[in-house]
């Protein structure tokens, strides 16, 4: 396991840069990781991040469809918020492990 300093805090990360301990996550850290991904976080982004953190914490399956049904954004909006690879990017910024779902 490697470590990385983000927003002045030393964090445990895996080789792809995902936080391995979700408890270390803060909003400042999220903003910093998002900047590295070229995203400026808005309140809407944080609603999505809270949703997926909550879902993973409960052990529920994290799929792009579940985000689309969250009531926060539809799937198109999710792609706009986190362009490119939304599920992976959002998970990275949310400080959770990379989702292992195929849908």
């Amino acid at each position, binding site marked *: 396991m490697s470590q990385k300093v983000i927003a002045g805090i030393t964090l445990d990360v895996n080789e792809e840069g995902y936080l391995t301990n979700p408890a270390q996550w803060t909003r400042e850290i999220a903003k910093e990781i998002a900047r590295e991904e070229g995203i400026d976080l808005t309140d809407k982004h944080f609603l999505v991040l809270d949703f997926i953190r909550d879902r993973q914490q409960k052990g529920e*399956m994290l*799929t*792009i*469809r*579940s985000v*689309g049904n969250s009531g926060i954004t*539809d*799937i*198109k909006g999710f*792609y706009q918020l986190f*362009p*490119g*690879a*939304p*599920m*992976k990017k959002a998970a990275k910024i949310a400080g959770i492990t990379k989702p292992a*779902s*195929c*849908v």
Partner: protein
Amino acid sequence: MQKEEHPLKKVCIICAKGTIEDVYATLVLGNGAVMEGIETKLFFTFFGLDAITKKQMNSLKTGTVGNPAMRMPGGLPFPTILGILPGVEAGVSAMMKSQMVKLDIPPVSEFLEMIEAGGGEIYACKLAMDMFKLKKEDLWHGVKDVLTVGQFYEMCGGLQTQIIFT
């Protein structure tokens, strides 16, 4: 020496069969590519057209005859002769679909919407449409165009592009 990585930039996926498992193989591959930020084009031809035909798309079936990998719940062999009985195909298909629901796999039309929402493109094959006497208005609203094979190849160019036949 450092191994050079060339991540996929574009995938063109061809679906030529209309069973649940063939169509979902295409949809999972397609949606998965879109989710990875890979440019994605899906091309439906022959019986695969059922997946984008309004009338058929949400009532696809799994074939219960001639499939040696088919098993009873519990793992016992599924004799082909059972598969010809009325209602068996419908029952097996319903069971397949209920298993997919548990994994948050959506119905065909919603799956296509998801792919489209992420920027994936859906095309139909002109020749097969002519063969099956289908018109553009018979197809799902999100089908971008009806293509000849030549037009399909034209959009499959470029480095780091793969054509996948499911």
